[in-house]
């Protein structure tokens, strides 16, 4: 008993010491995906800002693999001293825990959810030759031509896939899911008309919508997006409570001391107010995150986890 108390006191003291000293050496921001994607890019946008503020290098390191699980697991098991951070995302912290039968970390308990950086709507886009201009048109078309429509996605279990499955369930229609390796080849087949529609990430779909390469129909979020104000939400088009947002943010190992988390969150809040950061995040299709504090972020992750557990199970998608 006395030993436990002593240990606790020691731990508290050392975590205090850590907090005061943090960051005492270079900080690693682990991106669980390959370089160049939006998650990676946003890490590389905030890293130099944090470096400026804290006077230690913030190094972005890509540890891709297993849908992001390898990088997430690496951070879950890293020393909880604030020197190893993660760009945790909807895949690693909401979808994969249900999609994969075995997952080596607990998305809630093994992490401190520091700051939600980006939330991007998915947008329903259709090939220009498809005689569909609204959600209602699409539902009618799908009912008249059962089994004819194909929807593409970047991978099995991606938000694009799940959005399509949710759409099918809510409308009672049938479409065939065509999975690709990443959204780039999927977009190519959408342009060419080999697949009919896609629930693409707004940032990557926006240029093709604006130049008329594809037709935007609706966004998957509850609120309309500031970037495509004329596009209705699926929710307002009759698909009640259709709400799906791709998101990612900074996380730390589960036992990281409060002081470090708060310090980091406060600085990230400042960084996100800076004009150049806001402009670059806007280029990724983010209107700004809906939750601000670490506590809200954790609650958000728990909510998302529940939502997608249901969604993934009903979609029948799995990786095993």
């Amino acid at each position, binding site marked *: 008993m006395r030993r436990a108390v002593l240990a606790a006191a020691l731990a508290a003291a050392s975590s205090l010491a850590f907090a005061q000293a943090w960051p005492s050496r270079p900080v690693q921001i682990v991106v669980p995906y390959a370089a160049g994607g939006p998650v990676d*890019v946003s890490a590389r946008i905030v890293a130099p800002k944090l470096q400026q503020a804290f006077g230690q290098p913030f190094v972005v390191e*890509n540890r891709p693999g297993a849908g992001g*699980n390898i990088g997430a697991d690496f951070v879950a098991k890293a020393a909880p001293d604030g020197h190893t951070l993660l760009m945790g995302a909807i895949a690693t912290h909401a979808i994969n825990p249900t*999609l994969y039968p075995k997952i080596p970390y607990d998305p809630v308990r093994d992490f401190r959810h520091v700051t939600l950086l980006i939330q991007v709507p998915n947008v329903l886009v259709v090939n220009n030759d498809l005689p569909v201009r609204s959600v209602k048109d699409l539902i009618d078309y799908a009912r008249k031509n059962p089994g004819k429509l194909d929807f593409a996605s970047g991978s099995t279990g991606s938000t694009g896939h799940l959005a399509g499955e949710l759409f099918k369930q809510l409308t009672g229609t049938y479409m065939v899911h065509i999975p690709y390796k990443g959204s780039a080849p999927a977009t190519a087949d959408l342009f060419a008309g080999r697949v009919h529609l896609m629930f693409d990430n707004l940032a990557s779909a926006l*240029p093709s919508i604006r130049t008329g390469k594809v037709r935007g129909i609706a966004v998957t979020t509850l609120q309309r997006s500031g970037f495509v104000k004329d596009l209705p939400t699926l929710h307002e088009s009759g698909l009640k409570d259709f709400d799906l947002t791709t998101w990612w943010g900074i996380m730390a190992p589960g036992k990281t001391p409060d002081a470090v988390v708060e310090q980091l969150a406060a600085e990230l809040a400042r960084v996100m107010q800076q004009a150049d950061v806001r402009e670059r995040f806007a*280029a990724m299709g983010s209107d700004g995150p809906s939750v601000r504090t670490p506590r809200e972020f954790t609650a958000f992750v728990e909510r998302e986890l529940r939502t997608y557990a249901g969604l993934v199970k009903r979609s029948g998608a799995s*990786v095993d």
Partner: protein
Amino acid sequence: MEVLDNLMLGFSVAVSPMHLLYALIGVLLGTLIGVLPGVGPVATIAMLLPITFNLSPVAALIMLAGIYYGAQYGGSTSAILVNLPGETASVVTCLDGYQMARQGRAGPALAISAIGSFFAGCCATLIIALAAPPLAEVALKFGPAEYFSLMVLGLVAATVLAHGSLVKAIAMVVLGLLLGLIGTDVNSGVLRFTFGIPELSDGIGFAVVAMGMFGVAEIIGNLELKDKREVFTSNVKGLFPTVDDFKRSWKAILRGTALGSFLGILPGGGSILAAFGAYTLEKKMSKNPERFGKGAIEGVAAPESANNAGAQTSFIPMLTLGIPGNAVMALMIGALMIQGIAPGPQVMNEKPELFWGLIASMWIGNFFLVVLNLPLIGMWIKLLTVPYRYLYPSILVFMAIGVYSLSNNPFDLVVMAVFGLLGYICVKLECEPAPMILGFILGPLMEENLRRAMLLSRGDPFVFVSPSKPISLGFLIASAVLLVIVMLPALRKKREEVFVEDAT
């Protein structure tokens, strides 16, 4: 002439002193990382992304593009000198380039690959300037069915042309196909042959396999030789290609450039396929194909031209459609996003200085590269005089760094070592690694596209030969013709060896 106006605009942007400087930095860095085995453009560009914050978008793109095609140049250097594919696309260059080096002809090999790359780069740049948008439309014509049929042709060409030990070649292709199965099935999400190892769930990296099968295996093999270890420098026969070399090479360069420019446009490993394709084509066209694998200069000229042309034209889908064809292009899109530019079809119209500036800088960068690389040849040759006991540990260290940098995971090093052993065993069994590599690349792509095409056709296999898909039909007919040629016993004697690498 709108194109001329545009090119003028491009050159006016590209020749500004700052942009020249960034092009130079880019190609220098690119050459360097290309020479270093394993350290590829993806890792380098990712590390440099934050630096591009403070540059203008044009300068950033010029520099990053320079790194990419500079790496294609540099990749051939280590392939030729030490049988190490410095860049994934230079695997094919190892076949004849290394043999040339063994015969003391590393100089001509390096020179012809620089010249071929320069020519290919210039042609491809011109192609982008003249026809980027229509070519992007051609790329869109390639759907799953067309890809599948193209891969069938590639695989048939490789196995059918292999000879000597046809059985071994086929066995190696099949081994490659099987290794390619490892990972997550795209359609169902089922994990195949991963044995519960999460690192295997995305399959084995191509670079890791190539590095092990070629580089590590070569080192093990060399260590075994003890006293007889090869010294390439004792019989260096001139640094520059002879007239005869040029006579042999120019057609190969032309054909390689054409094939590379075309395959580069197609997303997904275009420049690697281009290099393999160009080599196969050259061997098929050659009057004395038995020279291939024993230091034929065409076997260096063709794939090097092809991979450089492919590297340039792979910008087309990225610039005109906003669709990245490979990992480097995905990074370029990331770089543009950092700059607040949403990549896509509008870039060409809204930011002509960016689009045309980049194209003009490619030509300038290619010029820098050839000017830089030709004088360097003498220095590279000197590198071979370094005693092997110093050379091989350094090579191993660089390979280890390179492979680790791919995904910052020590697991990849273990995989490389395993493939090094496998490569050594294959050398002992006289099984060539090249067919395996081809099977490894083509297998997963073939399967993915076959199943996607079948999904889209709702299970109708005739989709591959339907008149509505003339491209697919054409490839399959060509494959069938090739097969028939081999089946005919009369023609059998003429069957050539594509993949025999062993010069002994």
